[in-house]
Structures are given as structure tokens and as C-alpha cells.
């Protein structure tokens, strides 16, 4: 049975944000998505550190776009999930579901 990297809570949140954003997923968009959905004020440095770490594990892949004037002529780095990232995320979500199954509803909802 192939083994997939174990994902931490923040890594799962970042991967889910990438899934939600699709092609529009870059560092600040991920940060905004996490903030709007979870209410957590996340540092942009934390998002990029997590994305860099997951790119080293081949869970995500990044590509650099064209520079834009509103970014001071700096390029945007977009991220997308890889097949390995998708499988790892599913595995982590399944494990979480298995652990919460049968527990009191107030813990799950």
C-alpha cells in the first residue's frame, strides 16, 4: 500500500483553500480565503512557508505569472494541487471522518 505524507491541520486548510480557489490560487488569495472562512488572521509568511514545504513534498505545484503594475511590477506565484496532494488530502479527511463518526452531534456540527 503506497504511503502518503501526513498532513497537519493548517496544511489541510491551505490545500482546501487551493481547491476552492482553483486557477485563482496565489498566496494572498489563499490567506484571504482562510480568513473569510475560518476567521483566523493568518500571516502571509505562514501561508508561503506552508506552501513551500508542501511543494517540496510534491503536494502542490507552483508557477510564476506575469508582473502587474498594482503589484509594483512583481510577478504572482500561483499554486495548484498535484495528484499526490489530492490523495493525501482525501486520506486525511477520511481519517478525520472516521474519528468523528459516532461521537456526540455537538462535537461534529
Amino acid at each position: 500500500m503506497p504511503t502518503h505524507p501526513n498532513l497537519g491541520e493548517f496544511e489541510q486548510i491551505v490545500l482546501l483553500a487551493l481547491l476552492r480557489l482553483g486557477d485563482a490560487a496565489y498566496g494572498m488569495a489563499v490567506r484571504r480565503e482562510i480568513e473569510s472562512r475560518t476567521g483566523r488572521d493568518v500571516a502571509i509568511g505562514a501561508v508561503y512557508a506552508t506552501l513551500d514545504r508542501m511543494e517540496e513534498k510534491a503536494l502542490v505545484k507552483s508557477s510564476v505569472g506575469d508582473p502587474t503594475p498594482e503589484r509594483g511590477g512583481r510577478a504572482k506565484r500561483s499554486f495548484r494541487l498535484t495528484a499526490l496532494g489530492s490523495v493525501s488530502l482525501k486520506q486525511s479527511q477520511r481519517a478525520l471522518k472516521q474519528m468523528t463518526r459516532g461521537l456526540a452531534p455537538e462535537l461534529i456540527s
Partner: protein
Amino acid sequence: MTASQPPILGRALLWLALPESDLQTIRGDLDEEFATHALPNGGAAHARSWYMRQVWTSLPHSLSSRCRTAEIPQTVLVAYLGFLVPVATLNALRSYVLSQIPLKADSLRPTEFLVASLALGMFTTFLYGFLIPSARRNVICRTSCLLALASLLPTLLALLVPAFAPQGWYPLRVLILGPAGVLIGATARRNAVRSPAIRGGKKKQFVAPTIVSENNPNARFLDDKVRAVPSTLAD
């Protein structure tokens, strides 16, 4: 600087702390968010406070990333080993020479010798900064600046609390002068290779007319010049 621009301190801290791979993207992201969301939604004060909060909370992550990518450890190694090896060699040489002279072996080091050894250490780190390849120069510059600033903290502490002050202040001088030498060397090299045309921020471009056709303005210009040449010379 205007209120509608991100704080200079925040930008400087990012320049110091971010790893090379993330510097452009994170600064771009923050500048874009500052201009398109924070400023229109909350005003200049709110936007600037948001920017600084993002910078402060990102610093630990950025610094740990830089340690992981070996940018900081490499510069620490070079700045301090590059400083200490020649200084230690000079000390060993002096000790050897004095050991050969009766009653001079245990004599204290004069101030001139300490100054000369610091100057020698700084010169070697300066040489390193001057000779590093251009691809690594920006990273080494930023890291040396970070190290020199970090070394100022124990110096300030020693100035404020004399109990922490080391004897002779020599170690603290080494801490500051090592990275400072690298930084000065790298900056000197960068200024030396920068041509006057680039210095104003505008790159001078020369377009060589390669295709001679009626639609090519450069070709027409050349054609006019040739026509202006006296026929005796043109022939």
C-alpha cells in the same frame, strides 16, 4: 513616502527577512492587498497597521525558511570564519615571534595590534563580499545586513547593562565587523559593475538595424545617412 504607500520599515524588514525565493512574490502580494483592499476599505492608517502586522507575524516563518534554505548558515560561516581565521593566524604568528624573544612571550597585545587584526579580518570578509558571484550577491548582502543588525543587539545590551559587557569589547566587534565586511564588499562590487546608463534606473538600449527594408525606420535612417555622404566617399 506618502500615506497611500506601504510603510518603509515594513518593506525593509521584508527585504531583510524573506528568503530569496519568496521575496518578490510576498512583497507583490502585500503591496497588491494594501492597494486594492486594505487602503480602500479602511483608510491609510488601517492599511499601514495591517501591513506592519502582516510583516511582524510573517517574520518568524520567513527567518526559519531562510535557515532551512541555508542562506543564513552559509553567510554566518563565511562572515565569521572568514574573519576569525586570518585573525587567529596573525595571533599565532605574533605569539610565535614573541616566544623566540626572552621575557616577551607573555606581553599584552597592544591596541595597535588589536586594531590591525580587526582590520585584517574585515579586509578578508570584504574580499569575500567583493568576489562572490553576482547571482549570490543579493542574498549575501541581505543576510549580512541582517547579521550585522542582529549583532547590534548584544552591543546595545552591553552598553546599557555594563555587567554584560565582555572584556575589551573584542568579541562584539568581531560579531559586527564580520558581516559588515561582507556587506561592504558586496555593495562595492555591485556599484563597481553598475554602468552609468543603468544607474538612473533606465537601461540604455541600442537597436541595431539588421533588416534593410522600406518599412524599417532604422533602415531608412541609415539610408538617409548614406545618401548624405559625398558621392566620392560613397563610391
